[in-house]
């Protein structure tokens, strides 16, 4: 079982006490425990079982404006004594940085609300196996499917964050995740695709058969792809890819990229960076939300932010250190966004497919082609050619490229937003991108 609050709090307060005794003027500590159990199936047979029990502690000590940190998986006091002594010693020898400090006391979260993030139910390995058997039977039903790999993971975590200003809080979270990766083959090609479902509560998890069917269908439809010519074309991003564009947006408005001057969105506050109809929210208090939280990784309270209002950038994502550098208050985004999403648009999925006589529907991208300094974007892609609103044939071995500054201004959103990941987007269409192929 995952360690209880009392155990974690005891460790945290031991570390804070020792750091103070050894000369730290301030300190903060995070103690975490995570227990997860996974069962993997391959071709309808048990392939792997995996149990992990991870303990971890990280401590940051300050002496005035000097700072240093240590982390360890060994929580025995003997080891902590050595490490904290080393940490304080290192802190003394590290140069000052005027912006180093714990968060302002009045910004710290006062009380943790119950956001329904922990499900006490336990799914034994035998029950996981029952689920995976059903899933794999559905996934391998079609003869074209030649390999299936599926997985079921239960994770239970608990943590405590404490600092020398008196903050001490934490809570349990749980997740249940099922996934299926299938390979389909015909005479000419072999393709892979996947589907998965991840929820805080076991009872909310997608139906096994449905998941298996989706994975198989998404794979089979990719068989026998063609390569198309190079041209300027409208691109439609499937939801699972569209969320990546939001993640890039989030990195570009992080206070660290802004304060360092390494973002194409620096100095764009109150400017129009998206098309008129676009609203972007970061909402930390969604019940059962996969990105929900009561406070950020420094203990600062987190409120809902409307990051983009009718196309206009309203907020950066601010932590304490970079906030002080920028002369802004932390808005509780140390560690990034919570539940980040584009508000749903007005266009139906069908109308979006019909927007242009010819477009590309992208279901997967590969490569790390997002440059947040310049806004340049270039990635490998697979998907489908869409003509007059219909999927014509699968395509691969192409790249799609553009610059986010232009892409953001040319986004049209469908009305099909769902909350499946911590970051979510409806299907989106972007005009004027370049495809490189033959």
């Amino acid at each position, binding site marked *: 079982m995952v360690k209880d609050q009392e155990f974690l709090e005891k460790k945290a307060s031991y570390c804070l006490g020792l750091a103070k005794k050894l000369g730290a003027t301030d300190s903060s500590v995070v103690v975490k425990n995570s227990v997860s159990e996974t069962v993997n199936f391959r071709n309808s047979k*048990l392939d792997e079982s995996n*149990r992990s029990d991870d303990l971890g502690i990280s401590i940051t000590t300050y002496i005035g404006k000097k700072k240093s940190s240590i982390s360890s998986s060994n929580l025995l006091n003997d080891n902590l004594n050595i490490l904290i002594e080393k940490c304080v010693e290192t802190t003394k020898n590290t140069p000052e940085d005027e912006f180093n400090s714990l968060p302002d006391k009045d910004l710290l979260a006062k009380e943790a609300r119950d956001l329904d993030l922990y499900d006490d139910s336990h799914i034994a390995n035998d029950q996981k196996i029952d689920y995976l058997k059903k899933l794999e039977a559905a996934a391998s039903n079609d003869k074209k499917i030649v390999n299936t790999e599926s997985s079921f993971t239960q994770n239970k975590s608990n943590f405590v964050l404490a600092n020398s200003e008196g903050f001490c809080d934490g809570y349990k979270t749980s997740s249940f995740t099922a996934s299926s990766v299938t390979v389909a083959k015909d005479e000419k090609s072999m393709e892979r695709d996947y589907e998965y479902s991840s929820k805080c509560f076991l009872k909310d998890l997608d139906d096994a058969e449905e998941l298996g069917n989706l994975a198989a269908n998404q794979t089979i439809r990719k068989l026998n792809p063609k390569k198309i010519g190079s041209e300027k074309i409208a691109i439609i991003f499937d939801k699972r890819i569209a969320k990546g564009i939001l993640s890039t947006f989030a990195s570009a408005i992080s206070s660290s990229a802004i304060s360092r001057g390494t973002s194409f969105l620096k100095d764009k506050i109150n400017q129009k960076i998206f098309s008129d109809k676009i609203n972007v929210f970061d909402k930390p208090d969604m019940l059962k939300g996969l990105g929900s939280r009561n406070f950020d990784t420094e203990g600062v309270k987190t409120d809902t932010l409307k990051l983009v209002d009718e196309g206009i950038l309203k907020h950066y994502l601010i932590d304490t250190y970079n906030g002080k550098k920028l002369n802004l208050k932390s808005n509780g985004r140390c560690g990034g966004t919570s539940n980040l999403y584009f508000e749903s648009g007005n266009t139906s999925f069908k109308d979006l497919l019909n927007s242009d006589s010819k477009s590309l529907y992208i279901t997967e991208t*590969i*490569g790390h082609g997002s440059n947040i300094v310049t806004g340049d974007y270039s990635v490998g892609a*697979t998907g489908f050619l869409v003509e007059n609103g219909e999927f014509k044939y699968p395509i691969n071995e192409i*790249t799609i*490229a553009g610059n986010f500054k232009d892409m953001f201004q040319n986004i049209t959103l469908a009305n099909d937003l769902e909350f499946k990941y911590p970051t979510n987007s409806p299907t989106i269409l972007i005009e004027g991108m370049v495809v490189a*192929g033959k």
Partner: protein
Amino acid sequence: MSNFFEKSDLSRKEAESIISDTLRKCDDGELYLENSKSESILLDDNKIKNSNYNSDLGFGFRAISDEVVAYSHSNEISKNSLKQSSENLKSTLKSAKGTYNHEIPKSNKKYYDNINPIEQKSLNEKIKILNDVNDYLRSKGDKVKQVTANFLGEQKSVEIIRCGGETLSDVRPLIRFNVSVMLEKNGRKETGVYGVGGRQSYDSYLKDENWKNVCDEALRIASVNLESKPAPAGEMKVVLGPGWPAILIHEAVGHGLEGDFNRKKTSAFHNLMGQKVASEGVTIIDDGTIDNRRGSLTIDDEGTPTEKTVLIENGILKNFMQDRLNARLMKTRSTGSGRRENYRHIVLPRMRNTMMLSGKQTQEEMIKAVDKGIFAVSFGGGQVDITSGKFVFNCTEAYEIVDGKIGSPIKGATLIGDGPSILKEVSMVGNDMMMDPGIGTCGKAGQGVPVGVAQPSILIDKMTVGGTKL
């Protein structure tokens, strides 16, 4: 070497007896113990932003019966914890009735020294170098707007205890030093990144102000990119420079030749053994035995000594890279390629230092042979879809080639190709093979491991360049 049982209520003898009792009826498995110490010191925006020290201790207990792997890991090296792991493994493999394979090759060769790089240089010395780097780069003119530099150092001690008590151990040093610089000119910003590293002390790479070479290279790349114009879009000829561009080899063919994907027949290469998969003159090896290289290992994470494995010889596919599990199921032997990020992860067959060997041509001959194409010198990362064989990598320094001459620099672009066919498009192999500077990390199934690559200059007749200029 770490004594993993020193402060534990579990004695080595008791551990051995739990291991043997658990693995008796299994085909393979082991207890893997790991103790790692690492540091990271970061200078950014004119300040020492982070100095972090990490100490990580734990075990991973693995039992294998036929194709089924049971794994359990924990941070607590104690009697209770190991017994609980043993119960977990036994409950998964209730009906195991295999015969434990005791055979494991031995070697006395070592490819790096037993040192702790973190302790070999004081914090003050490291901070001084980082500040010197910052001052040096910022003295290069107003266009320098941002400098980031960091040290990463690690010492990892591992011990593998097998059924019957056979024990294998290794102590692995690893360091990395990185510099990133951002320039701004006429409102345009570009970055250049460079680094060095391997399994030696920091000083092996940084003495005599060698760090200046790293700074100069980062600055040079950023300066080139400030002048770059949009990259072309479409299929064309591509000349790759020597060294780090070999991540093409890593992505295009390396991953597809790992044993697990071929046993499962999900690799685009699974039915191509003995067949021609590359042009004549193309020989690719995966070598864990080069002294002090980032991807080298004395023994892999199952205890098998590493080796130099020939993957493709003169265009013909010769071998896959194997760990013990996949080797047994494919009725061959382990190539010493069984690796894991740390004790939290299961072993997978992985690359070490993947290298294309030198041929006879010169880089000038290749450039001359291209009417219209690009010359790619430096890269960010890459990725591959094992099943379809399609792979990408991102240029961070490239030039257009027009009528046999190198022209303007072009913006970073993604290149995409097809793994099983790309090496047949190689029409010239250079005489200038070079190792990468020692900075690569390969990701697979959520696990990152340090790797190396090497290649000479090569000419590829047809590849798709993902620029924006039609």
